[in-house]
């Protein structure tokens, strides 16, 4: 409920500062949203909300900017090239601590979807078996949860930078690979390796609960356009719910965007991704809790970042979630 309360609070703030809703509705407000990666079902909710006119219904003329290896969502947001960005909590928290005015308007993925995958045939059965092994790690913030995992079990691994493919793992170049449950794990399965041939370490099952994708705005934009922030959050969540309720149509839309972006589109893979997104966004199945960043999760992530010297201090939860602005 708290997520919605926050959105309501943002809405209330907006009411004071901006013209009446009817005037806003009559004139669509332009806004842009940058995603973490190129189109895929990880972002189904935003594309569906866009395609089904949900953003327009909420008075927003939204432009989606696909992310990718050459385009950093955090940089775009910080530099004001996009009004909203989908970012990992770890990224946003570090940026906030470093002085960027990132505010979380909705927390999309509630649980860490990261996992380490190893072949059973390589003799890896427990976290301790990873000691001294070559483990593929993505750069930047994607390395934070695995590092916390290694630390927890006191492991010293040979870290091998991992690219966007899992081919290095498939060819046997590394003993374990980083994988997103909704993406690389399924890619590995669909490269012909059976689940029973794999040992998987779900980081969330090992105490590393790092909420991932969330929607962020700069605090200065929020002050100017509080109503917009609330509308984008609400419309995005509505888009997600529509996607979960109409998976076939949602997949059609996502694949349409993928083809437009000329990225390989595999329907069954996107279907898996959408289903996993549902699992990650609604871990308890309670739709009322959707979009909310739990204080405990926030503080746990802040703690890990501080321990790893990635932040000096943990920014205030109320500031980070925009509640402080609503209260002003």
């Amino acid at each position: 409920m708290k997520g919605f309360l926050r959105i309501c609070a943002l809405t209330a703030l907006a009411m004071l500062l901006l013209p009446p809703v009817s005037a806003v509705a009559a004139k669509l407000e332009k806004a842009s949203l940058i995603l973490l990666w190129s189109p895929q079902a990880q972002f189904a909710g935003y594309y569906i909300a866009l395609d089904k006119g949900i953003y327009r219904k909420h008075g927003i003329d939204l432009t989606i900017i696909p992310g990718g290896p050459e385009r950093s969502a955090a940089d775009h947001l910080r530099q004001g090239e996009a009004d909203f960005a989908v970012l990992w909590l770890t990224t946003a928290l570090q940026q906030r601590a470093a002085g960027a005015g990132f505010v979380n308007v909705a927390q999309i993925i509630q649980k860490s979807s990261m996992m380490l995958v190893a072949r059973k045939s390589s003799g890896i059965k427990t976290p301790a078996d990873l000691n001294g092994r070559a483990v593929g790690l993505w750069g930047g913030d994607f390395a934070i949860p695995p590092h916390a995992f290694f630390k927890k079990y006191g492991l010293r691994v040979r870290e091998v930078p991992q690219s966007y493919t899992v081919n290095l793992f498939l060819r046997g170049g590394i003993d374990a690979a980083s994988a997103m449950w909704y993406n690389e794990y399924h890619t590995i399965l669909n490269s012909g390796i059976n689940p029973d041939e794999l040992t998987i370490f779900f980081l969330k099952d090992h105490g590393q609960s790092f909420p991932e994708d969330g929607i962020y705005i700069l605090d200065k934009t929020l002050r100017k356009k509080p109503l917009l922030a609330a509308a984008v959050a609400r419309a995005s969540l509505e888009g997600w719910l529509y996607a979960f309720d109409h998976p076939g149509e949602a997949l059609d839309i996502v694949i349409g965007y993928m083809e437009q972006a000329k990225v390989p589109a595999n329907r069954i893979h996107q279907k898996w991704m959408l289903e996993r997104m549902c699992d990650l966004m609604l871990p308890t199945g309670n739709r009322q809790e959707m979009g909310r960043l739990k204080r405990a999760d926030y503080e746990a992530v802040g703690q890990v970042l501080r321990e790893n010297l990635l932040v000096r201090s943990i920014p205030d939860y109320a500031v980070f979630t925009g509640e402080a602005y609503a209260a002003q």
Partner: protein
Amino acid sequence: MPRSRSIAFKLILVFTLCSALIFSVILGYNYYQSRMMLEKELEGNARNLAMSLVNRVETVLASVGRVTEEMAFFLEIGKYGERELLALLRGTVERNGHIYGSVAAFEPDVFCVATRLYAPYFHKGKGGILLTHLERSHSYLFRDWYQIPRELEKPEWSEPYIDQEKGNILMTSYSVPFFENRDGKRRLRGVVASDVSLSALTELVSSIKVLKTGYCTLSSRNGTILTHPVKKLIMNETFFTIAEARNDAGLREIGRKMIRGGSGFVPFKTLTGVKSWLYYAPIPSTGWTLSVMFPEAELLENVRTLSMTVAVMGLVGILLLAVVVVILARSITTPLHALAAATEVIAAGNFEVNLPPVRSHDEVGILSDAFLVMKESLKDHMKRLTETTVAKERIESELKIAHDIQMGILPKIFPPFPDREEFDIYALIEPAREVGGDFYDFFQIDDTHLCFVIADVSGKGVPASLFMAVTKTLIKATARKGITPDKILCQVNDELSSDNETCMFVSIFCGILDTSNGELLYANGGHNLPLLVQPGSGVSFFPKGGGLVVGAMEGSVYRCDRMLLAPGESLFLYTDGVTEAMNLRDEQFSEARLAQELTALRGRPLQEMVKVIMGNIRNFAGDAPQSDDITMLLVQYRGDNSNHFLAASP
């Protein structure tokens, strides 16, 4: 099949059903065998097709591999500066048609300390061979083409990728790591890689026509589809995503065999749901898989067409056969019908009917001939039968008269001498035929002497009856007052045996009872021994003895025996028809049984005794026909006492 159906119907049914059945079995077997043969042949053909394609693809890839490995070898042992290196790369791209571009990428600080990374890339472009420095646009260290051979320390073909910058070309790279030996340690210096555009290879694979709609596909080591008639699948689907979408565990298993470098020939359903056969074989250098898809329907099209044609021909054949059978059946049944109609007329007694003409000499012709002969024979036979019947009826009527006459000459009224109390007599004769050779007789010679005779003439029927009549007349004529039975037999024998050309004879038992005192004189001419029935002590046969049968030999002498009967004692005389009466089990009534019966009947009235024995003989014989005349004569002496006179005097 109802029994009343016509022959034609049965023939058609049996012939067409049997031929249809045989035909179907042959057709089915033929189809099955052809299919088996085709499938067997197909596997060979598929293997050959796949292997030839694999070889063509392999040739291209292997040549690229060889060139790249030679470059790596040079970079490992040669001494070169930047100029030589660039010349080597350019020359390689220039001289190898299959190579799209080549790069020599170095580990950080190995080639050029100033830039740290160094990766000159020569590639074909508009207006010739172009040079690009990859290190200027991005870090290549963690790209698959660099990182995988680096980590594995061995050459590696990359997963095919779509290069958008080069105009959406499907590419693959062959990367060979090269090393240097420093301080006895082997250290990686960099990776040399050649890019190969797959468009020529995929066009080659796609251009192979398999039957009408069959096709070849190429898939990568991850199972990714590289060529397919459905363009959307290319680089988007793997065998495993297709298997997941179709929920087809079998396909996933095939995919796993493929990526492990296996080959096989398996039934397969294509994405469009066409039943096919799939042959897959690995491309050795890259570990990719080439698959050939044969649509089953097209494969079996010729067999199906042939089978259909044969089926139609067979059907027409069976119909023709049915027509022929109808005609054949008609040729048989038409004369049969005519014969049947003629037979009905003949059965009604009309032999003048015309039989159908005999056209053929087959079984029906023979039957018609036989009918004709039979008709004529029947006609003759009927004629003869009529005549015979008339003759037989006449003889039967005469025999009946003869029977009546014969029976008429025997005394038939009992009691014959109702006024004589001192003896009683009862007799019964049952001829086997109308007339017989047995007879009995009794008459009084004088007041106190009763003569009684029982005889059996040899043979039966009319001759015996005539002989019997003669004998009876002779005996009656011979028996005079004072004569003894042996004399009677002597005289009768002499009479009969003279001029006895028929050689007939007769057995005779003749007795004369003195009714005043019970003295019995008797002579036996070869006849069965009579029985003496004594009310007190039982039944016994007369002692043996006597003479030859009468009429057999002239001058035969007979003995006269004497016996004294006590009052109440009886004599039972019989012919062999009694003791030799047979039942169906060929058992004889026998003398023992006769004696037993008589013992049981002692003391009963004479008529009752005789009739009971006759009844018992009939019961004994049952349904067995009577073979001989049965004659019984019972004489009882009652005694000449005062009662006689008392009773006689009124």
